[in-house]
């Protein structure tokens, strides 16, 4: 995935560090690196968020458009995820290099959100029109643990999204004309607080670490990604890497992953609430920080 290559000595150093519960950057096995989140930074999008997890830099923008619902689900809106691995992140993403990772990320994100997100909230007129959300994820810099960073940023961006209010509808036979308020502040926020975040746990030696760096990902035998909702429910699980697990280890990893997930959700919730309450005189950083 990246250009980092480690020799045997470095690998042994990392593995022994994990055994002693003291990782290269001084963290313990369950700790996360510092997170920075800024919301509402792209003015053309209906909702946006930029997340920095140590060296991983993710920008997520949500655009809404009007579409007709699928015939099998006339009361549901639509949501589509698209991940773009910019070649700026690492040169290996150049051309079609990042395609597989991007496809996997977007598919897993939609799998994780789908059992939790109530799509009927996006319905405008049953069977006729609905909102379609385009969640565009841009990976600007890649510093390991992309799954967690992308899911946190996507949740923040969706919490930040607001749908324009519909002032009136005109029926003309079977056609329906919608009239949408042209005031950019006349909007209804999208309720996305129940969405899950992803927690990756990488198995190194006999232990597992949360929030692995690129170097740790190389040393690890396998990685389990768990999607955890704020209530502690699990909505999707994925295995990464070529390793295999003992049944007991797997149970243990899922258990501790859900505990970390609940804490992570809580921290994100607090940050979002704080950001929304201080909306008036918010200090903006953008990309200059």
């Amino acid at each position: 995935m990246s250009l980092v290559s480690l020799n045997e000595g470095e690998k042994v150093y990392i593995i022994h560090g994990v055994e002693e519960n003291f990782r290269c950057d001084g963290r313990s096995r369950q700790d996360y690196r510092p997170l920075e989140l800024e919301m509402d930074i792209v003015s053309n999008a209906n909702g946006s968020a930029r997340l920095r997890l140590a060296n991983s830099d993710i920008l997520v923008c949500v655009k809404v458009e009007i579409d007709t619902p699928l015939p099998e689900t006339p009361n549901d809106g639509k949501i589509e995820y698209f991940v773009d691995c910019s070649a700026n992140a690492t040169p290996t993403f150049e051309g079609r290099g990042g395609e597989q990772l991007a496809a996997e990320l977007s598919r897993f994100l939609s799998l994780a959100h789908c059992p939790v997100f109530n799509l009927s909230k996006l319905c405008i007129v049953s069977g006729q029109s609905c909102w379609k959300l385009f969640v565009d994820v841009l990976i600007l810099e890649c510093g390991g643990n992309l799954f967690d960073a992308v899911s946190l940023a996507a949740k923040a961006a969706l919490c930040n999204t607001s749908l324009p209010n519909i002032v009136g509808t005109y029926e003309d036979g079977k056609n329906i004309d919608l009239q949408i308020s042209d005031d950019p502040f006349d909007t209804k926020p999208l309720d996305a607080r129940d969405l899950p975040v992803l927690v990756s746990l990488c198995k190194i030696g006999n232990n597992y670490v949360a929030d692995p760096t690129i170097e740790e990902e190389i040393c690890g035998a396998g990685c389990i990604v768990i999607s955890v909702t704020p209530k502690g429910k699990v909505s999707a699980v994925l295995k990464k890497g070529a390793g295999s697990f003992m049944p007991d280890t797997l149970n243990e990893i899922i258990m501790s992953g859900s505990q970390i997930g609940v804490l992570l959700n809580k921290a994100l919730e607090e940050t979002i609430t704080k950001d929304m309450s201080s909306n008036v005189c918010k200090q903006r950083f953008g990309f200059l920080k």
Partner: protein
Amino acid sequence: MPTNLYRFQGPEGTIPYQHYLIDKNNTKLTKIATALMKNERCDGRDISAHRNLCIKTGIVTQAKGSAYVEKGHTKLLCSVFDPKEVPNKVEYAKTGELQCEFKFATFSCRQRRNYTRDSEERQLCNEFRRAIEPAVCRGEFANFEIQVNVLVLENDGSVLSTAITAAGLALMDGCIPMYDMIVASSLGIFKNTILVDPTYDEETLCLSWTEDEENRGTVMLAYMVSLEQITEFSQNGSMDINMFPEYVQLLIDQNCKINKLVQSAAITDVIGHFESQTTD
């Protein structure tokens, strides 16, 4: 979206006529749901029983190894090809690679599928590769790759787990060195009821959105029985964390049952092979 102009593409924007049937899909699902509340399944199975398995190896003569597996109405074909050198590769790789393709035949599902690979097929392909990777002795094929193809002829639920079981058989039939046989099975959970080996309708029911807090979703687990290693685990839905040990144990028990069937099929194969040699 890349389109292949040499192949016939169905017209865009068509709707399957099933949506206009009087007895709509929804009533079928509610029928299954009410039956499940009484612990009954629409096909008369026990909730903890898997469907009948039909195994046949060596079905594709051109491939090194192949297997055809039928599980109820889920029918699929898996073929394995000889190790070959990785094209356009500069670096030396110590472990061999597995090149997988997971394809639904266009007529395999209720709704017609496209020729081009969609995101579901890509995801299934990734999961499939990760499930069989730990079972193959990849150190034996340094710098080489093995092609493993799966073609789903009919999709009636539990496709991925059936495909992994078929791949285990095809790899064995192709004499690819493996650490252990690999088998997989899946569960559907609907309102806290655990269904072993769900059909397509049951899977749709388990994954449909509901407001309540009860457990629902699907779980799939691939397992190497004698090494006691889980090679792939995937879950979707909304489940309580404390239920996972139970699901994992149940899936492992299921896998042990399937492993017995797979082993007996393998033994019959070997005996058949020797018999045909002695008659020659």
